[in-house]
């Protein structure tokens, strides 16, 4: 059972010690299955450093946790606790550090990445912090802040537009991919669909009938589009965002209406 399904289940995995133990065992199995062999040593080293530093929790997040890595995927984690040294490790590693109070406040303030890790992440270690956060999320059902995501996406698209104009194909591709991912997430959230990993966003957009935006995003993930294609992709991203604005204006989730929000 996935974390998101567990949130809706009548006997969620955080509710009893036995169920929680089964969840941790299941996540350990998933980790073994999903982690590419080339990254196991990196994962083990981070786990070792987190334990040595007394971290409250470590969650494997992102595309690896969904089994949907691409050639450009990082290895993402949320670490709850003090910072550990990572600058001597591969830059493929992307660790987001949080304090325990920050985890709770970010969760309730609508930070979609923290919610993502709690819904879909693989728990590597937990002193009870993740379990409490899952309980809190099930009780309050906070929905990510659509307006904030839309605002980041708008800024990022504007930057992508300028990047394309510089003639830097590689740099523009990175920025366009970032901007389209943000626009897709804003659009999905505004339609009350929780965005999955980057590689899964095109399919989620298609399910909403947004094939053009889906195609542009997929091209930026898997191919090397020309500068003129990237310019067109930015326009498609702007259209996605326009859709997010319209939906959000009609059906903008209130801060306190998360309890009625469906989980996807």
């Amino acid at each position: 059972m996935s974390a998101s399904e567990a949130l809706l289940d009548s006997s969620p995995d955080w509710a009893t010690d036995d169920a929680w133990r089964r969840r941790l065992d299941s996540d350990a199995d998933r980790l073994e299955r999903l982690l590419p062999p080339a990254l196991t040593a990196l994962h083990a080293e981070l786990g070792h450093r987190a334990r040595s530093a007394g971290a409250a929790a470590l969650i494997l997040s992102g595309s690896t946790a969904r089994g949907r890595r691409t050639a450009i995927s990082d290895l993402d984690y949320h670490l709850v606790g003090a910072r550990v040294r990572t600058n001597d490790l591969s830059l493929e590693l992307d660790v987001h550090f949080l304090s325990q109070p920050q985890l709770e406040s970010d969760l309730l303030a609508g930070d979609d990445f923290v919610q993502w890790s709690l819904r879909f992440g693989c728990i590597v270690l937990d002193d009870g912090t993740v379990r409490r956060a899952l309980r809190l999320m099930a009780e309050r059902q906070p929905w990510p802040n659509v307006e904030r995501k839309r605002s980041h996406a708008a800024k990022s698209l504007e930057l992508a537009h300028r990047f394309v104009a510089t003639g830097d194909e590689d740099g523009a591709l990175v920025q366009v991919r970032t901007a389209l991912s943000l626009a897709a997430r804003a659009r999905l959230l505004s339609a009350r669909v929780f965005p999955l990993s980057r590689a899964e966003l095109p399919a989620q957009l298609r399910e909403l009938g947004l094939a053009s935006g889906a195609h542009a995003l997929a091209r930026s993930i898997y191919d090397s589009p020309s500068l003129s294609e990237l310019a067109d992709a930015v326009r498609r991203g702007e259209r996605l965002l326009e859709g997010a604005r319209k939906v959000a204006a009609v059906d903008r989730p209130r801060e306190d209406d998360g309890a009625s929000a469906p989980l996807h």
Partner: protein
Amino acid sequence: VSPKAKVKLAREHLERALPAVSADDYTEAVTWLFAALEAAIVAVAERHGIDTPNQHWKKAEAAEKLHHSGVLPHDLSETLGVLTEARKVAVYEGDEPELGSRSLESIAGEVEAAVELAEREGAP
């Protein structure tokens, strides 16, 4: 718009970054500094026959190799790492990134030195 040579792009991206560094505009500054440094590293790597695939960590590995072989006087992979993280925090989360013991100005200085080196390497 036509694609341009990396060494030229490195200089142009740096010129875009510097006003943002002075204005403490983190998102603009780290975005363009990151692009300038990547372009400079790729320009030098290409000159020395080192392949730089599109993954950002491969460019850091190329910077490390160039330092170990004496081409780059400093290991720029760490600076690239700081800028990678900073860019993600600024662009994805809209927050002011932590730069550790560094400042935007000191990072801009390192990037400028890398761009100058790429220009010297590329000079006929």
